[in-house]
């Protein structure tokens, strides 16, 4: 770790003997109303002019460009920004866990102690002890080979010298506090035996084991379903009240911040654009970018199609089951992912399918296009497609296309964008010559507002939003009538999401496309679909016009989803 604090002159002096420059800065902060507590009470953490450069072979890349903020005891500060804004680099710099090629300058002080000049040993004493962290990826942040009890006890042994029975007792207490059911049984579970939400609770238990002064929560709920998200946020809030720790909450999602943070820092391109009390920032954002982030909630509604519009795709009693075990003797054990679903999609319609992970929504989508084996009846444009084999399906494939969630994984890294887009043409329109294919590719790229001149580049040269446009162009080039959109915006930043949604809307209007839109994101579904299906555990919980369901959801589960997505009530604490 290279850390060369540029303000080394101040770091040697102890907190009470602040020098003039620091005093002046603190005064400015106080005047601006940024220091929540009275002058004289030093903040818990102070970051001054933090700069992080990544030393890459072809020069230094700045990731954080002079960021300053303070965090008071017991306070929640949200660090908000989209991907590449430097928010996670800032929080990782506090722990000094950045890779070696990162050069850190400036000052980070915890209770007056300069962390950038602290010894490695001192940093180890602080990590997991005074500064604890909860990361974004609950599925992979726990060691898969260790039981969860051991992973909690490890911190207790390290920082509290707690071992044996006493450590186990404390671990049980922590699991209880973070709301793991039956802690006595669960303490000996492996991470893969727990759900994502439960794993995140275990991560929180590890973080709280030593009652830290500062909890860094780096997108702790992003990978979780909305209802679980709300539970975890509630849990963090209640534990904060109990232990009086400060939380540095890193997120790209402003809607969470509104209910969760005391103050907000908005970051973009490694710079701090705006800092202020949450209420103030939301009511009167000072910076245009903040305004844009707040307004980036997808807006608008789609008008329903005429009641007599022809049916393009219809399905009766569709079932999909997966074999999960095949014992040597006895019957195989199957899991039914989709349990008898009826569906009718009319031309020009957008049907939104919402549900949490494991609800069977993606499985249903793939089964409808016969990308998965299923039972039941499916017909496309009046043709029963269930009896068709692969070659029988092929002519229909160009009329039904798919756009997947992952704009990074679903484009082959070894093909140029032009090759990716034209591949379908080679299959379905072998009569086209090279020049004609190229012309179609250029048209498709222009349709999705990308420069056709970029068709000879490779996918890694494009941003996430651009890649999703490429994926849409790949589907569009065959001039389909029906598009299955499987979470096409979930991996994108909010501001990019809005532009992709506009694009999809625009394409639908221009070409009369029919969409089946799968998402866990209610805000996006509301903006894009005219008909809604809510799924849970392979079954339809509720369906009807999008407008009607959002106005007055009939089912309890639908209400829970909406509550969690639009107005998480963080005041209450229950698990």
């Amino acid at each position, binding site marked *: 770790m290279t850390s060369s604090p540029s303000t080394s002159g101040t770091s040697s002096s102890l907190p009470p003997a602040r020098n003039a420059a620091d005093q002046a800065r603190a005064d400015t902060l106080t005047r601006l109303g940024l220091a929540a507590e009275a002058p004289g009470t030093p903040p818990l953490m102070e970051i001054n002019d933090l700069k992080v450069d990544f030393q890459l072979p072809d020069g230094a890349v700045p990731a954080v460009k002079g960021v300053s903020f303070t965090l008071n005891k017991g306070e929640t500060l949200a660090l908000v920004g989209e991907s590449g804004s430097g928010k996670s680099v800032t929080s990782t710099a506090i*722990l000094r*866990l950045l890779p070696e090629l990162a050069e850190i300058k400036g000052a980070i002080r915890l209770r007056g102690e300069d962390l950038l000049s602290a010894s490695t040993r001192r*940093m*180890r*004493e*602080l*990590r*997991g*002890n005074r500064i*604890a*962290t909860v*990361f974004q*990826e609950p599925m*992979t*942040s*726990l*060691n*898969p*080979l*260790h039981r969860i009890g051991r992973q909690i006890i*490890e*911190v207790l042994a*390290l*920082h509290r010298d707690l071992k044996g029975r006493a450590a186990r007792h404390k671990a049980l207490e922590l699991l209880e506090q973070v709301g793991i059911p039956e802690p006595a049984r669960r303490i000996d579970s*492996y991470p*893969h035996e727990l759900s994502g939400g439960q794993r995140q609770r275990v*991560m929180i238990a*590890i973080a709280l084991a030593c009652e830290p002064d500062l909890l860094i929560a780096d997108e702790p709920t992003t990978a979780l379903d909305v209802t679980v998200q709300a539970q975890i946020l509630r849990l963090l809030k209640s534990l904060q009240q109990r232990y009086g720790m400060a939380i540095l909450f890193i997120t790209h999602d402003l809607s969470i911040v509104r209910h969760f943070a005391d103050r907000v820092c908005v970051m973009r391109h490694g710079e701090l654009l705006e800092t202020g009390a949450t209420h103030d920032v939301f009511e009167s954002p000072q910076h245009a970018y903040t305004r844009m982030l707040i307004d980036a909630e997808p807006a608008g509604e789609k008008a329903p199609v005429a009641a007599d519009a022809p049916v393009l795709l219809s399905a009766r009693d569709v079932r999909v089951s997966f074999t999960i*075990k095949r*014992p*040597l*003797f006895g019957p195989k054990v199957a899991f039914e992912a989709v349990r008898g679903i009826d569906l009718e999609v009319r031309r020009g319609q957008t049907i939104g399918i919402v549900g949490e992970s494991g609800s069977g929504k993606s499985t249903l989508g793939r089964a409808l296009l016969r990308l998965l084996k299923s039972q039941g009846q499916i017909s496309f444009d009046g043709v029963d497609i269930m009896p068709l084999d692969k070659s029988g399906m092929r002519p229909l494939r160009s009329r039904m296309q798919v756009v997947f969630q992952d704009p990074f994984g679903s484009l082959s890294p070894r093909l140029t964008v032009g090759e990716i887009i034209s591949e379908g043409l080679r299959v379905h329109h072998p009569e086209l010559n090279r020049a004609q294919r190229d012309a179609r590719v250029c048209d498709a790229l222009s349709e999705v507002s990308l420069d056709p001149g970029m068709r000879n580049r490779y996918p890694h040269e494009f941003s996430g939003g651009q890649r999703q446009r490429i994926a849409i162009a790949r589907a569009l080039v065959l001039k389909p009538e029906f598009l299955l959109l499987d979470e096409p915006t979930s991996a994108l930043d909010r501001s990019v999401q809005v532009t992709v949604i506009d694009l999809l809307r625009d394409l639908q209007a221009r070409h009369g496309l029919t969409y089946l839109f799968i998402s866990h994101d209610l805000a996006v579904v509301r903006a894009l679909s005219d008909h809604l299906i809510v799924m849970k555990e392979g079954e339809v919980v509720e369906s009807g016009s999008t407008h009607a369901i959002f106005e007055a959801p009939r089912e309890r589960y639908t209400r829970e989803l909406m509550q969690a997505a639009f107005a998480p009530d963080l005041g209450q604490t229950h698990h």
Partner: protein
Amino acid sequence: MLSYTLKRLLQAIPTLLIVITLSFFLMRVAPGGPFDGERRLPPEIEQNLRAAYHLDEPLPMQYLRYLGDLVQGDLGPSFKYKDFDVSELISQGFPASLELGMWAILAALLIGVPLGVIAAIRRNSTADYVVMSTALAGIAVPNFVIAPLLALVFGVLLGWLPAGGWNGGAWQNLLLPVVALSIQQIAYIARMMRASMIEVLGSHYIRTARAKGLSEWKVILRHALRPAMLPVVSYLGPAIAGIITGSVVIEQIFGIPGIGRYFVQGALNRDYTLVMGTVVFYGALILLLNLIVDLLYSMLDPQIRYDD
């Protein structure tokens, strides 16, 4: 786990049958027979010998007869070592082969794993480059080249170690053959360990371990080593097979009285039953060891469970 083991053992039967069938017929395709020597036997005597060993029957009959005997655990008599059954020869040779093989696999693990870990931790350092380029050389040079070179340098030129012989398995006699046999596996394992260690060190749970405040040393030993070992453990199956096939050549070069030597000499002498016996024995052994490796894997990785 028990039902899984049973299933695997049942699956081994067709595999073994294919191995037996292939080697049975391949042996017979090779020109010459067990009684062709420097001096040609009188036709009547050869005829009698062939009849005694049922070699005068049609090939499919012989094949069925062999399978029938095999099911009863009878590998038949050796054609060359006339006083011995094949099973006697195998049990005579096995202790030496086992000792050689065990040491080779132990050396491969005890040297390969630490080398890989060091290379991964000191990635792109001189140590890394030295380990990796040596490993590459180890993979590139076959053991039948390394073995005579070792014997020449350390046995003949320097005279530090015996160039051949067994001497009851004394360490001086073991050292060169073990090195020759394990060097390729050391190289493979070191490279594999480096790659998987680098991957594990970049994973999220290692970041968690560091954020807990553990020292880098503890992070590696407690959190990274076991997951990084998993690919190596699953490679142990092929590694054992490699060492077994390698031992056939190495035993011959160093004059070690193991099964491998019988195999080579049996093949040269068209001693059909002896070759078949060693093939069946080693085939079954490799299948069994592969099963053990897979069960071991499930013990190391709680995410893999062979449920009943």
